[in-house]
């Protein structure tokens, strides 16, 4: 039953996104614009920004994530369907997991565009050889972003100034993710590979994801039922 509910919730979010094409398109465009701004802000195309690649990538993705997470309950809120969802016998954890999976899919879709573009915009070093390690880093960071984003978007959902509150809650929670993901990306793409440093940062991301999963499990019922 829970599996069926989870699949239904994720499928519904993806169907709505495929039909409206609002969130992912906006996220990709936002990320591209941000990279263009960063490119102009940091120097010309001739400057080698390889050593900043981790920071540039993850600052871009963190702000892009805020955009996506902010839209995670838009269909329920603007189309006034939330009560229909809440009155159904769906465990709140299943709702959390479904939204987290949807955000994860949105982030991966954005990164399919952004990660190659970072290589084109900023890097003159051996970036493409590290693309697999960057993808693993991105996946771990995305899990953190999806779990934290779902929790905070749920919290903000029932507040009046939700569009202001969400970034205020969510961005500070992303700081450790940005530090670790940028560090891990730098370790494999910012010069000579340092796999032990990369592993350390990835373990940190894994721990952070587990921490947020536990916090979500402990609080998500209260977020929706209180």
């Amino acid at each position, binding site marked *: *039953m829970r599996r069926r509910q989870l699949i239904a919730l994720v499928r*519904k979010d993806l169907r709505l996104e495929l039909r409206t094409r609002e969130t992912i398109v906006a996220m990709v465009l936002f990320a591209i614009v941000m990279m263009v701004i960063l490119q102009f802000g940091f120097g010309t195309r001739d400057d080698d920004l390889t050593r900043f690649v981790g920071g540039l990538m993850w600052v871009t993705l963190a702000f892009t994530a805020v955009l996506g997470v902010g839209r995670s309950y838009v269909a329920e809120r603007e189309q006034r369907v939330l*009560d229909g969802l809440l009155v159904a016998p769906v465990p709140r954890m299943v709702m959390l997991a479904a939204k987290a999976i949807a955000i994860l899919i949105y982030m991966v879709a954005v990164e399919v565009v952004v990660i190659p573009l970072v290589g084109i915009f900023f890097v003159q070093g051996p970036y493409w050889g590290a693309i697999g390690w960057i993808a693993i880093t991105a996946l771990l960071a995305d899990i953190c972003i999806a779990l934290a984003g779902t929790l905070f978007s749920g919290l903000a959902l029932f507040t009046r100034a939700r569009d202001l509150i969400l970034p205020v809650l969510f961005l500070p929670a992303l700081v450790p993710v940005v530090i670790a993901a940028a560090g891990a990306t730098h370790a494999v793409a910012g010069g000579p590979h340092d796999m032990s440093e990369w592993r350390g940062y990835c373990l940190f991301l894994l721990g952070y994801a587990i921490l947020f999963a536990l916090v979500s499990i402990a609080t998500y019922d209260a977020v929706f039922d209180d």
Partner: protein
Amino acid sequence: MDGVDLDLAPGERLALAGPNGAGKSTLLRILATLIRPQAGTLTVLGTDVAAGARQARGGLGYLAHDPLVYPDLTARQNLEFFGDLYGIPDRDARIDDLLDHVGLRGRAEDTVRTFSRGMAQRLALARMLLHRPRLLLLDEPHASLDQRGALLLDDQLRAARSDGRAAVIVTHEVERVAPLCDRLVVLGAGRVVLDEPIAGIDPAVVRRRYEAVTP
């Protein structure tokens, strides 16, 4: 709400009336487990909501002012979605039956955004009935249903008694729903100011009793 103490028997249909701000919709949302009461106990279909809200929700059918369906999904996709949330075993056959019943079989593959308000509410009626709920919670249902939808709802409420399904109907139109209900409860400022049986009583008489206790 203050000191509200109500019991609803299987098959009983209760009209919940009162002036604006009396707490009708709030009470209905409490019964629907959408608001947790700050005090007191709420038992829905034999389940203490504080301990097992999810179990109670499985037996509730909630019809609100809004259709509670996704405008960007088709009628069928909406019903499939809610059918999966409720774990309905015969989902597709049930959806076909209900789409026929509410007269939307021909528009099943159209997005709800293209529906009129009345059609969307008929789809909401189908959504509410999809999982064969044992307790119907209706928030001013006749205000937003078209004529066909209103007649379908009336049929459902007439059948509810023999099926053993209870119903709570929030309404401003006491005379309209009186023939469909067994009992009238009137709220005033969050308190019960009238609670009496109305089965078989002339709707005009019911309306006068209602007006006698409301400002």
